[in-house]
C-alpha cells in the first residue's frame, strides 16, 4: 500500500468507527424524506403554491425533479457538516496528535481527507436521492406520470450526487482553514442559510458563484428550462463543479499552508 492509500483507508475507518457519522447521515436521510413529503403532499405544498404558474403537472417527471431540488437543498448542509467534521473532529478530540505521529506529512493527511470527503458527501447524496426516488415513485404512482419518465432524468440525480460529494469537499476545506469545529460550521452554514438567500435575492449574479448555488447548478443540470425560477441565473453544471472543487481545494490548500502546518500543542 502506498502512503496515500494507507492514509485514505485510515480516514475512511475514522468515519466508519464512530456513531456520529451514521447519526448525521441518517438525520439527513429522514429530514429529506420528511421535508420532501411536506413539500409534495402538505396542505400548502407544491401543488397549491404553484397553482396558476408555470408549475409542471402534479406527478409528472418535471414535478418530481422540481421537488427533488428542494430535497437536495436539505441534504447539502449535511454533506457540508460531514466534510467539516472530517478535519475539525480530529482537533476537537485531539486525535490529530496520533494522526500526525503516524503520518507526519500533513499535506498528505489533508489530501486524504479531501478524497474521503468525496466519499462521505456521496453517501449523504445517495441516501437523500434514494429518499427522493422513493417519494417520487409514490407520487408518480398516485398520478398520471410514469416511472420510466422519472428514471429518464438520471442526469439530475447524478448532478445532485456530484453536488453533495463536492459540497463535502468544500466543507473539508473550511475545516482545514478554521480547525475549530464551531467556527467552521458557523461560517459554512452561515453562508448557506443566512448570507446566500439575501445575496440571491439582491445580487443573483454574485450568488451563483457561492458554494450553495454552485451545488444547485449541478442538480439543475438538465432542468434549466424556466419552471424553477431560481435556476435561471445558476452557473452551467460544469461551472458548478469547477467552483465547488475550487472552493474545497483552495480552502484546504490555504488551511494546509497555515492552520494545519501550525504546531500541535
Amino acid at each position: 500500500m502506498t502512503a496515500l492509500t494507507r492514509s485514505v483507508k485510515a480516514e475512511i475507518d475514522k468515519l466508519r468507527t464512530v456513531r456520529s457519522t451514521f447519526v448525521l447521515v441518517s438525520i439527513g436521510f429522514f429530514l429529506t424524506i420528511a421535508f420532501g413529503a411536506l413539500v409534495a403532499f402538505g396542505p400548502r405544498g407544491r401543488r397549491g403554491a404553484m397553482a396558476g404558474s408555470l408549475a409542471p403537472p402534479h406527478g409528472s417527471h418535471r414535478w418530481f425533479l422540481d421537488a427533488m431540488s428542494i430535497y437536495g437543498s436539505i441534504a447539502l448542509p449535511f454533506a457540508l457538516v460531514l466534510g467539516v467534521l472530517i478535519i475539525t473532529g480530529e482537533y476537537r478530540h485531539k486525535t490529530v496528535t496520533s494522526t500526525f505521529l503516524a503520518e507526519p506529512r500533513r499535506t498528505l493527511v489533508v489530501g486524504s481527507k479531501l478524497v474521503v470527503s468525496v466519499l462521505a458527501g456521496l453517501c449523504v447524496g445517495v441516501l437523500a436521492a434514494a429518499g427522493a426516488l422513493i417519494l417520487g415513485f409514490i407520487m408518480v404512482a398516485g398520478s398520471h406520470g410514469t416511472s420510466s419518465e422519472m428514471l429518464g432524468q438520471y442526469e439530475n440525480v447524478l448532478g445532485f450526487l456530484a453536488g453533495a460529494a463536492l459540497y463535502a469537499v468544500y466543507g473539508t476545506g473550511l475545516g482545514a482553514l478554521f480547525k475549530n469545529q464551531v467556527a467552521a460550521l458557523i461560517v459554512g452554514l452561515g453562508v448557506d442559510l443566512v448570507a446566500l438567500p439575501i445575496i440571491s435575492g439582491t445580487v443573483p449574479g454574485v450568488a451563483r458563484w457561492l458554494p450553495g448555488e454552485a451545488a444547485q447548478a449541478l442538480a439543475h443540470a438538465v432542468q434549466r428550462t424556466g419552471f424553477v425560477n431560481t435556476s435561471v441565473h445558476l452557473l452551467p453544471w460544469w461551472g458548478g463543479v469547477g467552483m465547488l472543487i475550487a472552493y474545497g481545494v483552495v480552502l484546504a490548500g490555504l488551511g494546509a499552508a497555515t492552520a494545519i502546518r501550525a504546531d500541535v500543542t
Partner: protein
Amino acid sequence: MPSTPSIEVTSLTKRFGPVVAVDDLTFTVGPGHVTGFLGPNGAGKTTTLRAILGLVKPTSGRALVNGVDYRNLSAPAQAVGAVLESSGFHPGRTAHDHLCIVATEAGIQRKRVPEVLDLVGLGNDAGRRVGGFSMGMRQRLELARAMLGEPEVLVLDEPANGLDPQGIAWLRGFLRRYASEGRVVLVSSHLLAEAAQTVEDVVILSRGRLAAQGRLEELLRRVSTSVRVRAQEPPKLVEALSAAGIASHLEGPDMVVAESTTALAVGQVAADNRIVVFEMSSSGESLEELFFSLTDRDASEAPPQPPGPPVTGQPVTGQPVTGQPVTGQPVTGQPVTGQPEPTGVPPSGNLPPGSFSR
C-alpha cells in the same frame, strides 16, 4: 539510519511569541537505560518532546531521532513510540478501532493491535468505547499506541499521570526492561521521587535551559547534606567521623550532626567502629534539594523541607550495627530506593500530584 537508536537535541530553541519555551537546549539520549527528563512545570519538557516528534517546529536548532528529523523518518511509528499527555481519543470509538486506525495510517499490521492491548492489560476492554475509560486506562491505551510499531525509541510525557500505584509499578518495570534490551527510553516527569525510581540518567531542564545531565547517582553525590545520628557513644562517633574526614559536632545528649556527607558514609563509619546507632536521618540529601539547586529555585520559594523521618522506626537497641549502613542499600543502580522517603509519600512512589511541582 545509524544502528544504535538515539535522540539528539542540538541548540534547540522554541519561541511562542514573546515566550521562550526552550532556550538553546542540547543533549543526547542513548540506549540501554531509562533517561529521566526532569524539570518543574513550564520548564519546556513537553515542548522539547513535541519538537523531537515533529509536532512542534523549532525556532532554531534541531531535534533528531536516530540521526533523522522525525518528519523525514521513513516509518516514524516503527522508529519512535510516543506517549503524550495531550493526545486524545474519540470518545465514541473503541480501543480496538482506535489502534487499528493508527496501525493502518502507520503501515503496521493489524495483528499487532490485540498484542499491544494485551501488553498494557486492556485485552478485555478492546471492544469498549474509550469514552468510558478511566484516565489510567487512557494512559495505558496511549502506551499501547506507542508500542504498536515496536519502536527502538520510546518517548513518554508524564506517563505516570492517572495510573494507580500498581500501574506505576508495572510501568516502571516495563520501561526498565524495554530500555535494557538496548532501546532508548526518555521519560519526562515533574515528580522527582517518581522518576527517580525508574531512571538512571537524567536530563534536567530549568526555564527552557539545560540545568544538568548525567547519572542520577552522580548528581546526588554532589549535593551536600548533613546527617543526624543518635548513637550510644556520641563523642566516640564524632572522633571516628573526624578520623574518616567527616566534620561533625555534638547536639544535645546523644545527637551527632555530621556535615557534608551521606548517611551511607556515616553508617559505614559507625559500623566500622562498632558504635550502636539508634536513629539516623539525613536532611537535605533529597531529590527535591538537588532539583531546586539545579533548577535554581529561590530557596525562599521552596516549601520548608520536612525533616527526614528516622531511618529506623525503632532504636536498634542492643544490636550493634555491623557491615551495612543503616540506610540499607548502597547507592548503586537504584540510587533512591535507600533514601528516606519524604513525609507523606507512600512507598510505591505514587505521589500526590504537585508534590514537588508546586
